[in-house]
Structures are given as structure tokens and as C-alpha cells.
């Protein structure tokens, strides 16, 4: 089992390809890997609980840890209490933590 850090900087409203990256995160988790999906920049726009976009729920159900950069959330006025189920706010330091752990890191 390997450990992966997938960083999504894009949002599904602007880029169809985001769904493929979510799919890769789910696929890696289903293969038995430990996977974190870290949302940053406009990537956090998918994380509002009222967003008309449910794909993150399926990613969480696949066993992926989903974190959203707290700075990017604040920048866009998304409050922590308003996050979709399965998404947690986190500092960017987590990315450095996981890089330092040696996780395979993929930026999208």
C-alpha cells in the first residue's frame, strides 16, 4: 500500500477534468492506498455543502481523506461550518507534512 497526496487546485464548474482527478483519487483508495485529496485555490469552490455538485461525497465514500485549504476557504468566504460532508478545513502545512512523509504528490 502506498500513500498519495492529490492536490486539486481546479474546480468542477470550470474544468470537466476535475472529475477525472477525483476519479483517480477514488481509484487509488479502492486499490488499497492511503489517499488525501487536498483542495486549494478554486478547488475549494466544490466544498460548499449547498454546491450543486455531489462528486466529493463519492470520493469520501471511497475512503479518501478530503481536506480544504483554510486560507483558500477564507479568501472565498466559505465558512468551516458550511462545508460538504466529508470535507475538513486544514492548513497548507498539511501539504508540507505529507511531502515530508514521502507521499507521492500529484498537483492538478
Amino acid at each position, binding site marked *: 500500500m*502506498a500513500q*498519495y497526496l492529490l492536490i486539486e487546485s481546479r474546480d468542477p464548474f470550470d474544468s470537466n*477534468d476535475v472529475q*477525472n482527478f477525483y*476519479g*483517480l483519487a477514488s*481509484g*487509488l483508495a*479502492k*486499490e488499497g*492506498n492511503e489517499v488525501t485529496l487536498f483542495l486549494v485555490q478554486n478547488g475549494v469552490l466544490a466544498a460548499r455543502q449547498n454546491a450543486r455538485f455531489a462528486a466529493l461525497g463519492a470520493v469520501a465514500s471511497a475512503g479518501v481523506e478530503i481536506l480544504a485549504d483554510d486560507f483558500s476557504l477564507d479568501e472565498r468566504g466559505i465558512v468551516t461550518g458550511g462545508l460538504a460532508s466529508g470535507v475538513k478545513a486544514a492548513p497548507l502545512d498539511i501539504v508540507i507534512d505529507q511531502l515530508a512523509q514521502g507521499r*507521492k*504528490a*500529484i*498537483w*492538478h
Partner: protein
Amino acid sequence: MKALNIIETAYRGTLEEQDDTIVWLTHALKGAGADLDVLLRANAVNYAVKAQKVAPLSFGDRQQKHGPDIANDIAGLIAKGVGVYIVKDDLAERGISDDELIDGLSPVSRDGLAKLLDGYDHVWHW
């Protein structure tokens, strides 16, 4: 150390550079002794289409000598021993058939990417 260069973006600056900057980088890394493969995905699957043809540009009296030849640059990677994977689903979505492609590619399904990534120490998505 083995790395996988994933190329997603296509035709970004290729006319100015007369190549794709990541295909070029892959050639340069291989030349420097790197052990790496390439995965063409999303719009970059079009880089494997044989029929790509670009006449050198001209602006006023300024005539360029070359246009990019990206399919040949990809074929050159294969000739150097770089494995070039290509996502079948992305080809199908864009209506690209197998007979349009250069030889030597390794097709992979989108569902198969998780297994493919297992074989690399680093996965660099450009």
C-alpha cells in the same frame, strides 16, 4: 528513482517553442540519465496523432524555419526507451481512432491509472 511525467495540456506555446515544453523536458531529462516514462492524457492524447502538420509561421517578412513536429518528438521518446502510455478513454472521447496514432504507444484505461502509478517513485503531472 523512476518517474512518470503526465502530460495533460496540449498546444500551449508550441508554436513559439517549436515543440511541447514537457515533451522537450522529457527528452532533456532522459539525456541527463533519468529513468522515466510518459503518460499522455486529456487533450495531450492528440500529440500521438500522426497527421499533425504545421507549416512554419511568417509575420511580415519574418519567416520561421520550422514548425513543431510533436508526433515525431513523441516517437523519438519511444525510440530512446521511454515508455509512452496513452489514456484510451481520452482518445475515444475525442473521436481519435487507433489507426491515426503513431506506433509504439502503450494504451491504458482511465480505470487502470491507479495501478500504473504504483510503479513509480514520483508522479509529476505537468
